[in-house]
């Protein structure tokens, strides 16, 4: 792994992630619009929003931790992208496996939590408390899925996992080998995206968009960028674990968009869950399905 290639990948992979993420956000808003029989935003709307936010003249900050928090949020996901292999570019996926990726994905939420904490707004603190509780809720099924995958493929190195799946063709895919875990993974994916059914921590009417209450200008822009990365990372992770990663870019993107479309449609069809309802749901059904899947996988 020569340094130049790595440096190039370090820049290229997040860029790809950002662009694909923009289109994912666009798809999210388009699906929402179509479900509500609306026209929906124009093609480049997410990009306009981000450029406008970064172009704002006055940037209101509450202290240096507020700035560092946003930097950590965006930077954390940039680092997470390099751990996610995409067709053609492997980044440092073999240096840190699946467990490292799960932990690196927690850094942005910690950074955001610290930044929002400094905003000294109780709406933000309540939002962060709910966000961390939501993380507690959806991480349990997610961890069962991670364990099942690591046990089935025998390794946590994503590059190998994708190689094994691609070797076996469609039959070798994770989803076919571990259907129940794939379903549990979908639940976890739904929680990870933080969209409608589990969006209690952004509840606009109740706690004024929770953590984003004091974010203006480039801070909000940073969070929009993070949202793109979040959608992309969740989608690609699910694809590389269960749908055999991308043989080439076309199939890869197709799979990612299909996978992410499912939770998005569910998002706009279900009302918002309360925190304890979310935990009860996440700890009951997906965990049962996951454990059942594990039982099949391990014996």
């Amino acid at each position, binding site marked *: 792994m020569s340094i130049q290639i790595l440096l190039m990948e370090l820049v290229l992979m997040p860029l790809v992630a950002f662009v694909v993420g923009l289109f994912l956000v666009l798809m999210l808003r388009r699906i929402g*619009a179509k479900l509500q029989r609306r026209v*929906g935003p*124009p093609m480049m709307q997410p990009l306009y929003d981000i*450029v*406008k936010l970064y172009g704002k003249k006055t940037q209101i900050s509450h202290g240096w931790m507020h700035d560092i928090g946003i930097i950590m949020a965006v930077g954390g996901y940039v680092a997470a992208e390099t751990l996610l292999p995409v067709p053609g570019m492997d980044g440092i996926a073999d240096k840190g496996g699946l467990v490292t990726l799960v932990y690196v994905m927690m850094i942005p939420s910690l950074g955001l939590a610290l930044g929002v904490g400094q905003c000294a707004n109780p709406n933000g603190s309540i939002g962060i408390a709910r966000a961390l509780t939501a993380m507690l809720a959806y991480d349990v099924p997610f961890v069962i899925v991670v364990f099942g995958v690591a046990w089935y493929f025998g390794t946590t190195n994503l590059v190998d996992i994708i190689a094994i799946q691609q070797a076996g063709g469609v039959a070798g895919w994770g989803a076919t080998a571990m259907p129940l875990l794939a379903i549990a993974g979908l639940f976890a994916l739904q929680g990870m995206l933080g969209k409608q059914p589990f969006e209690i921590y952004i509840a606009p009417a109740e706690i004024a*968009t929770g953590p984003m209450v004091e*974010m203006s200008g480039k801070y909000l822009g940073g969070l929009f960028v993070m949202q793109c990365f979040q959608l992309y990372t969740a989608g690609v992770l699910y694809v590389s674990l269960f749908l055999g990663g991308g043989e080439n870019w076309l199939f890869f993107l197709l799979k990612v968009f299909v996978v992410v479309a499912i939770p998005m449609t569910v998002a706009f069809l279900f009302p918002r869950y309360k925190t304890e309802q979310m935990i009860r749901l996440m700890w009951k059904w997906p965990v049962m399905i996951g454990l059942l899947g594990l039982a099949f996988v391990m014996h």
Partner: protein
Amino acid sequence: MKNMKEIDIPIEASVEQSRTNPLARVFDELVRFCRSRSMFMLHYCTGCGAIELPPAMTSRFDMERLGIQPMVTPRQADILLITGYVSIKTLKRVILTYEQMGSPKYVIGICSCTVNGGMYWQSYATAKQLDQYLPVDLYIAGCMPRPEAVLEGMRKLMDRIRSGEADGWKDYYRRYDWYLGNQQHLFGDDWQTPADVIGEASHYDLAGSGTEGEHTHLLQQCQKPLEPQQTFFQIGGSLEVKGESHE
């Protein structure tokens, strides 16, 4: 609608002077374009006009086509929609909200009550002209204008943002003293908002001749603007906090 401009809305109509080198101009053009195509709307339902906004957002008129999204807090919003009559009590909150928004910010006065008092023209409780207290970029007349009118207004504002004419927010900084005078005239001399507008103006070097004046001196006399808490990097030292200096 072309002759709206002649109305002597006391705005120093100075088009944003475009920067010299072509790259910067293209960049400015792009930013202005994006600013016009993505407006986050904070509708402050002060009066009856707000009922017209949901239909503008839902499937029939769909504001999202124009890139307009409703936002909850002033920090995230660009446009402040003042819909309907503004009582003096509400005007205080409107000014606080306006000062909490990040500029460039635009104010749209919907309904004729914001233009000249509307049907409450002789009421003692309502503010008659909104643009005396806030720089208003666009008025949409009508005693509750229909969603088409609201969208037409929005499109008008988008054109003016793209062309760079809609810079009412600079005017608030440049002629803050005049605005403050009107506000003090209405709310009394001890009127203060937590946002330090003068400091902000000097920070972003938007301060004009009218920023400081006798009204702002009145403001400084009555209350000290809230200084942000600077991080304190001095280790040790004997000063104890009041809480535990009991020994």
